[in-house]
């Protein structure tokens, strides 16, 4: 059996998810021994348009992006969205709540009118996606898990329950008991509750769990004394795409 050819691509994002893969260090050699990496600009030089599996990082923010992602889609047998920007639109969607002129001026200054841009969106809003690796940044263990599943011909299913499950397994004190606003109650698990375990709160980077009850969560956060502004502000950080379009 010939080794599957793998390529990495990036759109609007910080390439931090590819960095997470590079951070696997020597483990990457074991993983890479099962595949042929034809394009991965953070790790190696060269590029080829002959690939079967495409990992795509970043969100779609321009008309030009659509053409490029459609071309990648047409070449790849399997397309996997990598990281929050690609899977849920991520923090790029913050701009969707601003006036277009305002954010363009903010970013490009006097050259704003030379740049085309539109509301940020996840890859799946433009082309069909076969798999998603969530998180900002992604969990490298989960990336390895996905690759191994692909190689073994298994379908990788990310957890469909909220982060609370993993916090309970980790034995964490609930952040609501400390009076802190935490989005773990609606966010898809899979990170192992890492932020809460390290003393922070959940920011929602893995997107809403399929079973997330956003209305109930808003009511719960209200009952726990958090203002509408605080709650919406927190939700917009990562979940903007779901607030605006759903």
């Amino acid at each position: 059996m010939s080794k599957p050819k793998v390529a990495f691509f990036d759109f609007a994002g910080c390439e931090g998810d590819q960095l997470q893969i590079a951070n696997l260090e020597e483990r990457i050699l074991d993983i890479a021994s099962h595949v042929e990496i034809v394009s991965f600009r953070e790790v190696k030089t060269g590029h080829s348009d002959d690939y079967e599996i495409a990992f795509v990082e970043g969100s779609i923010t321009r008309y030009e992006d659509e053409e490029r992602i459609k071309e990648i889609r047409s070449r790849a047998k399997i397309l996997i969205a990598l990281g929050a920007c690609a899977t849920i639109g991520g923090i790029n969607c913050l701009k969707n709540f601003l006036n277009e002129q305002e954010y363009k001026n903010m970013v490009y200054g006097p050259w704003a009118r030379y740049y085309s841009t539109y509301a940020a969106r996840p890859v799946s809003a433009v082309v069909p996606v076969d798999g998603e690796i969530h998180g900002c940044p992604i969990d490298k263990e989960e990336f390895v898990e996905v690759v191994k599943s692909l190689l073994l011909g298994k379908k990788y299913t990310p957890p469909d329950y909220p982060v609370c499950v993993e916090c309970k397994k980790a034995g964490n004190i609930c952040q609501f008991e400390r009076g802190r606003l935490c989005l773990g109650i609606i966010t898809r698990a899979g990170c192992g509750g890492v932020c809460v375990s390290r003393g922070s709160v959940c920011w929602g980077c893995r997107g809403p769990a399929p079973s997330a009850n956003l209305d109930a969560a808003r009511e719960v956060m209200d009952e726990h004394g958090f203002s509408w502004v605080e709650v919406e502000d927190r939700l917009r950080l990562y979940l903007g795409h779901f607030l605006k379009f759903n």
Partner: protein
Amino acid sequence: MSNYIVYLEQLEGLFAGWQEKYKLFVPQEKEGFYFLEEYSPEAEISFDYDLLYNPPKSFIFPPREDLIEFDLKTYKSKPLFTVSPQILFGLHPYDIKALNQLDQVMDMGSVDVNYRQRRDNTIIMGLTPLRVCPEAFWGSVNAFNVDFGFDLFWTKIGPATFLVEVGSKKGEELLFVNGRVDKATSAEREVARRKKQEIVSLVQKQNRLKYSWEEVPRVLEKSFDSFLWAEKSRKCLACGSCNLICPTCYCFDILDEVDDKLNKGKRYRTWDGCMLESFAKIAGGHNFRGRAAERYRHRYFRKGKYIYDMLGELGCVGCGRCVRVCTARIANPLEVFNVLWEALSYER
């Protein structure tokens, strides 16, 4: 069984003696909550804790446990056991009752060998509670006293005096690890009895089931079509916290993982919960309890009826952990059992 007297200053010596053979976990405070943490001589033991934040089941039925190891090349597998002897010191009666119940369900039918292995390597030391957490209602669900399931049971009968009941031969041996200790007099036994009575009346005063716990299964039976399930579950976040934090919940999922070279792998189990949306989902995508109200009802039926039908006792020990952990504040079994009962008495 016999009763002995141990003084506070003897404890350090006893603990040191036990630690030679066992990992010793004692209740300790962290950020205003209490946890069973490993003992060290510097540790401050919270004899007066109100509730352990996490259920003690995690010491015997850990959140993740490796079951077998397999080889993808030779298709051979072998079972995995990673067990070390441990002592859980300071469990309240309701938590011991919960462990007793786990023992029964895990041993029923074919014995859960991984659970049994850990359980056999665990020494349980009970402690009479000195305080009650505001959510607790163990006084109402027959969980204020246990006759078995402990090796030693400690009751603080004076500022620096404990009465220790012996529950097993092993427990007695541990108590004598530094030589024999004094036998308790009948007066001291009486003090311990009153201390227990005192705390039971306290918990019964604060939260009370309005009827006898034996009636709960019958109340639920008549409430299958109640409006309460839909009404309450409207706010359910399907986070499963009430399941995972429950000292008697024992459901788990089994998963496989393989190493990076794709040569060897492990099969492990991890906690699962019936409040999670995909818990009752089967091949083909059908979900036996697809609606939140069905899942919500199921949990109360597990606690109040199904376990009772199986074992003759409630699946709830009234510890109050689910009440505390549910951010939506809909997980209180006492409240639900009371409301359903009241609704039925109006109908009559």
